């Protein structure tokens, strides 16, 4: 896997907010169909890393490549990059003034310039896939948190991205809704979608992740195949973190 062209590559990336360094010398690669789970304590820079990949934040130094195109290298089309990269937020961020179906079709219609009928067809396909087709005409506020997050996943999929980013997709959910969202994500992983997933759901990570990354203080402290990561964490910080999250 390691020798095919990576979907995403970060080389020595730094990110500063003013004087504060949120990412320090971060390097990683994501191969097609690879699943990487990122964990680490709050404030360790996980969201920043993910947000730099689709350029919701601009990195300060180093290089980021998405589908072979370098971000911030003059001519790169950011909108093209964002189409290739699906994003799922902790707070869902569905468009509250649009119906579920419209939430899914607005990107394909406005950005991919698909015909409306084709966009609706696509939307219904993905709604069925996240098992929520019967709610298509409702508005986000009428859905449960778990349903909203599944709609958000479907919205990202409608852009037919080549990689999906998840930033703590289940952290804002009530416990009984976490599994329905994780199931959708596991299904997606099964289908061969490349993904970077920030989560503390270690059961999910064990089942799905090819590789685990542990971050602390803006740095990647540990990056290892999932099995070895869980059985033989190398660093003391990572061991302590795992003990904490696995206890719960």
């Amino acid at each position: 896997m390691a020798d095919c062209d990576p979907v995403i590559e970060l080389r020595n990336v730094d990110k500063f907010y003013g004087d504060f360094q949120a990412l320090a010398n971060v390097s990683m690669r994501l191969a097609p169909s690879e699943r990487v789970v990122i964990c680490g304590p709050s404030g360790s820079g996980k969201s920043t890393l993910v947000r730099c990949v689709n350029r919701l934040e601009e990195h300060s130094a180093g290089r980021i490549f998405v589908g072979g195109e370098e971000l911030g290298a003059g001519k790169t089309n950011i909108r093209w990059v964002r189409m290739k990269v699906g994003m799922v937020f902790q707070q869902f961020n569905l468009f509250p003034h649009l119906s579920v179906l419209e939430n899914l079709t607005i990107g394909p219609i406005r950005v991919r310039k698909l015909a409306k009928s084709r966009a609706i067809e696509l939307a219904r396909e993905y709604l069925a896939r996240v098992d929520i087709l019967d709610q298509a005409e409702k508005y986000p506020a009428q859905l449960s948190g778990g349903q909203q997050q599944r709609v958000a996943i479907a919205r990202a999929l409608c852009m037919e991205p080549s990689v999906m980013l998840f930033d703590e997709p289940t952290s804002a959910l009530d416990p009984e809704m976490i599994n329905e969202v994780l199931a959708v994500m596991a299904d997606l992983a099964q289908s061969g979608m490349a993904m970077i997933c920030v989560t503390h759901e270690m059961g999910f990570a064990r089942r799905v992740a090819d590789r685990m990354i542990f971050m602390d203080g803006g740095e990647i402290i540990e990056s290892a195949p999932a099995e070895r990561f869980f059985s033989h964490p190398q660093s003391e910080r990572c061991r302590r973190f795992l003990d904490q999250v696995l206890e719960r």
Partner: protein
Amino acid sequence: MPSSARPGCRIPLPTASGAASVGLYLLLVCLVLALALNGAEAMGYNWQWYRVPEYLFAFTDDGFQWGEIALGLGATLKLSLQSFVLALGLGAVVALLRMSNLVVGNAIALAFLEIVRNLPLLILLYLFYYVLGPIFALDRYAAAVLCLGVYHAALVSEILRAGVGSVDGGQLEAARSVGMSSAQAYRHIVLPQAMKFLLPPMTGEAAHLIKSSAIVSVIAVVEMTTVGRNIIADTYMSFEIWFTIAAVYLLVILVLSLAAARMEQRYATAGRRK
């Protein structure tokens, strides 16, 4: 009557806020009227109310005809509408400059806001008519529209900025994350959600503009207040005409507020529809 206690709306409604306040208002109006009538009586004012209707409308041999005040109202509405459109366009540009991270754009917008907001409207009008007028060959009507448009653009831009700012930042990010351009994100995602925050203060601003448009009578642009002055110059009916014109302004503002309350309710419920 729509309730003024809507959760999630920080800006008070500039419309009639319930039967109680309307009642109180009418009571005050009656009181003022009674005092004025009394005073007029004491100074031996010669009331000629019977002559007023002809200035609103008349039935002549040619059939129905609008009177001078009605035509003046039309002119006021046209002037106000044109100025408001200009204020919206210019206000949007200023708001965009203000929200951008362009240093120069920001400075220009700030300078514009400070200058316009800190000048009396009358002085601004004189600047447009007596200074810019001759330079750029503006007639009095153009000077009036430009002056009102520029003055209200400053207020409109702040309303727009506040309205857009009240929409959750995650919305813009979500729009961006599906590849929308900034223009698309504002048009399809941010502005529709900002509408419910924008409508109440925008209506207030439209009412404010209609009221402040009366000031252009000092440069003799034809509109309702100028018409009033002309009629009085001919007839000396100052009490009747000013009362009538005040009532017409009041009526227009009231209709505007009611229409806005309607629209606003529609926006407030959108998104919760079944």
